């Protein structure tokens, strides 16, 4: 079996669906492939997003949203906590989504814009002509299928195979991946108002524990640990420990695991006939692990650039340069800054973390944004944060 189109998008997560929608809206014939039987399931995510940026890109449907929060509360290893309000708390809090519904909603928007959505269809390699990609070979419900298309958008998540087939090295080093485990927990101890973050080298080495509320006394309680400090099964084991100490009576309704890139911007997200978006392009924020919005932003850009490249007839890497330039200027700088913060953060001892969070206890940070808070932190802890001085000013 074979078919032809202008763009084939591999992966129907938020990045892929936004790319497919943008390309279809621009008049292209688009195939959107999802290897699973169901878009959005199983979830591999803590589901927190910022309200403002999300609303700039799509109209959030009420059924996408499990809960709205007032802000973020961050706990030091010694139990001291500080609170950041939602509108200043950075991009990761505001809404806690129901990803199964949200992802399906975005795929539906792509379908309604004209994209041909194909589930249980897995890309297994790139088609090549004179060495340049010209589509994908796939397995559709167990049968081979060739899809010819001048442009392939790889939105294939942490696995990121499209990129590697196209010669882009997206392999994650152990120090550049967070390995994560999460339970959907119901417990009277859940804080329904705030996204909570717990720091500490014994509870989550090189990462953090989170509790993101999803409605009445229900929350995603999970953790990520740095790959280089992990061992087999460690993420799940540590989550069990955290549950025993913080939610001893919690009931677990769902189990979620996954790998989250924290690599910072990759050298190139394009090759001849290929663009990578979202986790596949390692566009996840390395400090917070948040990657929904950056994937959507990059996906929209990729879809638009695909339309321009198809109409100009130049789908070479050079012809796709606008995608490279735009994602770097829109989200790449932020990712690079977060990467530096992450590289610093993972070195901190529990005493350092206690000192930093403790120093903010007497400051009025509720109305500060992350940048403002960093400036205060730097003023109060110049010696500890000296390495970061170039990021603070």
């Amino acid at each position, binding site marked *: 079996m074979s078919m032809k189109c202008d763009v084939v998008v591999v992966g129907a997560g938020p990045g892929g669906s936004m790319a497919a929608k943008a390309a279809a809206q621009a008049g292209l014939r688009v195939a959107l492939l999802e290897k699973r039987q169901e878009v959005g399931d199983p979830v591999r995510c803590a589901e927190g997003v910022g309200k403002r940026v999300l609303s700039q890109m799509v109209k959030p449907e009420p059924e996408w949203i499990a809960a709205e929060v007032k802000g973020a509360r961050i706990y030091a290893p010694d139990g001291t906590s500080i609170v950041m309000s939602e509108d200043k708390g950075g991009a990761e809090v505001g809404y806690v989504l129901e990803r199964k519904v949200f992802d399906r909603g975005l795929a539906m928007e792509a379908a309604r814009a004209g994209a041909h959505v194909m589930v249980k269809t897995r890309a297994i390699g790139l088609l090549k002509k004179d060495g340049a990609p010209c589509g994908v070979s796939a397995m559709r419900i167990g049968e081979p299928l060739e899809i010819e298309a001048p442009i392939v958008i790889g939105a294939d998540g942490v696995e990121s195979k499209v990129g590697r087939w196209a010669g882009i090295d997206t*392999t994650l080093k*152990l120090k550049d991946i967070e*390995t994560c*485990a999460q339970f959907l927990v119901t417990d009277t101890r859940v804080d329904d108002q705030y996204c909570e973050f717990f720091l500490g080298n014994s509870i989550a080495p090189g990462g953090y524990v989170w509790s993101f509320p999803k409605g009445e006394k229900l929350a995603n309680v999970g953790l990520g640990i740095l790959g280089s400090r*992990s061992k087999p099964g460690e993420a*799940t084991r540590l989550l069990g420990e955290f549950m025993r100490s913080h939610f001893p009576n919690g009931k677990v309704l769902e189990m979620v*695991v*996954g*790998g989250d890139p924290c690599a910072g911007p990759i050298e190139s997200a394009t090759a001849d006939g290929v663009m990578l978006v979202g986790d596949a392009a390692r566009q996840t924020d390395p400090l917070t692990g948040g990657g929904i919005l950056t994937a959507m932003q990059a996906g929209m850009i990729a879809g638009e650039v695909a339309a321009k490249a198809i109409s100009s007839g130049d789908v070479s890497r050079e012809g796709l340069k606008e995608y490279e330039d735009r994602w770097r200027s829109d989200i790449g700088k932020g990712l690079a800054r977060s990467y530096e913060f992450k590289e610093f953060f993972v070195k901190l001892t529990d005493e350092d973390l206690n000192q930093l969070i403790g120093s903010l206890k007497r400051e009025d940070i509720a109305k500060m944004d992350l940048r403002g808070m960093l400036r205060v932190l730097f003023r109060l802890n110049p010696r500890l944060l000296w390495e970061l001085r170039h990021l603070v000013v």
Partner: protein
Amino acid sequence: MLTVNRYKCCYCGACVGVCPTCALELVETFIEVSADCKECGICTKICPVGALEVKA
């Protein structure tokens, strides 16, 4: 050889992303290991549930 305990695996694909030889593939609900696997064991370290093991 690299073994995948299918009863433990939660098919998240984290192992696929770190494999230096691109030898792993997540097929919906199971991991396939190709002949390119060099048994380096990197994937076993980050498996959140400990489903991967290099056995002699």
